[in-house]
């Protein structure tokens, strides 16, 4: 399959990082970036390829986190199994929210609002329900065995997350080349036209939302294992909804590497501004916000779009770009 070589190259290069440096700071940085890239890849499938902008991906991230943590702590189940169930739980929540909203024909800003509201409802429920530990949150017991999805050092965590990320990249690439992917792009470009041509748009959107939710839930489940603590603000808070959409938008919506690129840029920027801003709270986020505005103003198609544009200037334009349809 075309396009797998770049993914393999990136995967191998990134997998080598722990051999080059044992610095926890570097690995921590990359883990956070990959986590956001993974959550963002989920968003990208629905928002980037399908054009359905969700403002509530926290609903899926949080479900992944809570299912992973709560099943372990309350029912003593195996962590890996809990993680898998967390992904399934996220997918289920995605299917339910998607089913409800797409059946009602919600589009554009209405869809964005309803996802936001669902995430908020889940956050409030999680902050009072006894099973989630309510306001106190849930602590996963320290148990540093690979069977318990916990490791002595950062490196194995890093590789597990990298593997998840690579799977999501490959999955995105497969979707890009599939009939399903073509339907998704078609309905993003013109939903009514796609429908008129016989695409079952509701079903396609529902499928995209379920896959999207599952990927973002995986990021949530990993978060629980890595930090061993969950509360309502972390799991269902707006921060992750924003990060999950910011990464692909800054990197390039509807591209395979967009979310990863965007997440690395956001995190680098975040670290740099933290150094510049010292301990001053908020200053880094002020720069965040300005970058978002600037990206939309000057590079509406993200970094990937910028790269394409620069490349287009360097090489003489070929025939009107039809590459994608030839796949």
């Amino acid at each position, binding site marked *: 399959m075309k396009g797998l070589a770049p993914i393999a190259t990136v995967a191998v290069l990134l997998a080598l990082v722990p051999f080059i440096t044992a610095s926890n700071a570097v690995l921590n940085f990359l883990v956070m970036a990959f986590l956001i890239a993974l959550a963002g890849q989920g968003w990208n499938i629905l928002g980037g390829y399908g054009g359905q*902008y969700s403002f509530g991906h926290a609903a899926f991230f949080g479900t992944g986190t809570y299912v992973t943590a709560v099943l372990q702590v309350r029912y003593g189940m195996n962590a890996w199994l809990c993680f898998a169930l967390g992904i399934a739980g996220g997918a289920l929540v995605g299917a339910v929210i998607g089913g*409800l*909203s797409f059946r*009602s*024909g*919600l589009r*554009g*800003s*209405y869809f*964005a*609002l*309803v996802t*936001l*509201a*669902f995430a*908020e*409802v889940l956050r*409030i*429920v999680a*902050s*009072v329900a006894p099973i989630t530990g309510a306001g106190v949150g849930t602590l996963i017991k320290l148990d540093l065995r690979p069977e318990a999805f916990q490791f002595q050092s950062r490196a194995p965590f890093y590789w597990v997350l990298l593997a998840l990320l690579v799977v999501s990249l490959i999955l995105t690439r497969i979707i890009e080349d599939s009939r399903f992917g073509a339907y998704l792009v078609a309905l993003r470009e013109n939903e009514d036209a796609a429908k008129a041509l016989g695409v079952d748009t509701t079903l396609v959107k529902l499928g995209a939302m379920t896959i999207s939710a599952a990927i973002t839930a995986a990021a949530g489940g990993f978060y629980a294992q890595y930090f061993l603590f969950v509360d309502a603000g972390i799991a269902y808070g707006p921060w992750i909804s*924003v990060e999950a959409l910011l990464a692909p*938008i800054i990197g390039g919506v509807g591209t395979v590497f967009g979310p990863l690129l965007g997440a690395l840029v956001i995190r680098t920027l975040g670290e740099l501004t933290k150094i510049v*801003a010292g301990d*001053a*709270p*908020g*200053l*880094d*986020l*002020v720069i*965040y*916000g*300005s*970058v*978002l*505005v600037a990206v*939309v*103003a000057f590079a*509406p198609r993200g970094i990937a779009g910028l790269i394409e544009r620069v490349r287009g200037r360097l090489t003489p334009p070929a025939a009107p770009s039809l590459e994608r349809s030839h796949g």
Partner: protein
Amino acid sequence: MVSSVILVPALLNGLMTGAVYALVALGLTLIYGVLHIINFAHGALLTAALFAAFFANKLLGIDPYVAALFLAPLFFGIGYALQRFVIGPAAHGEDRNILLVTLGLAVMIENALLYAFRADTRTINLSYAFDVVEIGNSFLAVPRVVAFGVVVAIAALLWFAMRWTDTGKAIRAVAKEKLGAELSGINVAHIYAVTFGLGTACLAVTACLLIPTYYVNPHAGNAFVLIAFTIVVLGGMGSVAGAMLGGLFVGVVESFSGLYLGESLGQIGIFVMFILVLLFRPSGLFGERA
């Protein structure tokens, strides 16, 4: 059943709270109705206005109700400039871009306030903040009664202005048919900015009405955003009367669900209502069918 001794004050208090919600929603619905965008910076702008009202009192000793008289024009100017020189040009006319630009602005404003004033929660002390009036057998806080009156007056004023002034007519024309309005000589970019300015001015007044009994911190405005969205959707996006009725309705729902479900779960009533309305009647309870 709970007796009327509790229900009547709960109803009245709900109406008072609802009036303030309605004013936040009025700004939002104006902006939505004309620009067809969801303004995610609304909460952050409200927070900024709360800080302005707070410091006007703390540093200059100006009563919040007096401050409203100059903060409203000031925030009109801020809103006008934001739309004319930032949001409009950055958005390239695409809805999703506007969404993102306002989101970016929200993050910027909120964190600039956090940076400048830290996360501390501040309140002001006014001699009349705890005065109450007795209506029937319920006691109502004076600032809340004042807020109620001001909001009703502003809603009425806006409603008349939209109907009978040239600017109001131009705003409605742009909302209905942008291209047609442009062809008949209306400066659309200017009308967009005026609308955004009006919406922002509503927030300045809201802040002045809230500050006597409320607090301010860099996240204070956020509490109102989803509620305002709910009201806007409920009242029909773009409808002034709908926002007013929707606001009062939501205030009462919140008051009663707080009574029956407790403080923290009480908020859920609003969101559940929001989701139900979005799913089953997205044109709103009072709006026209889309």
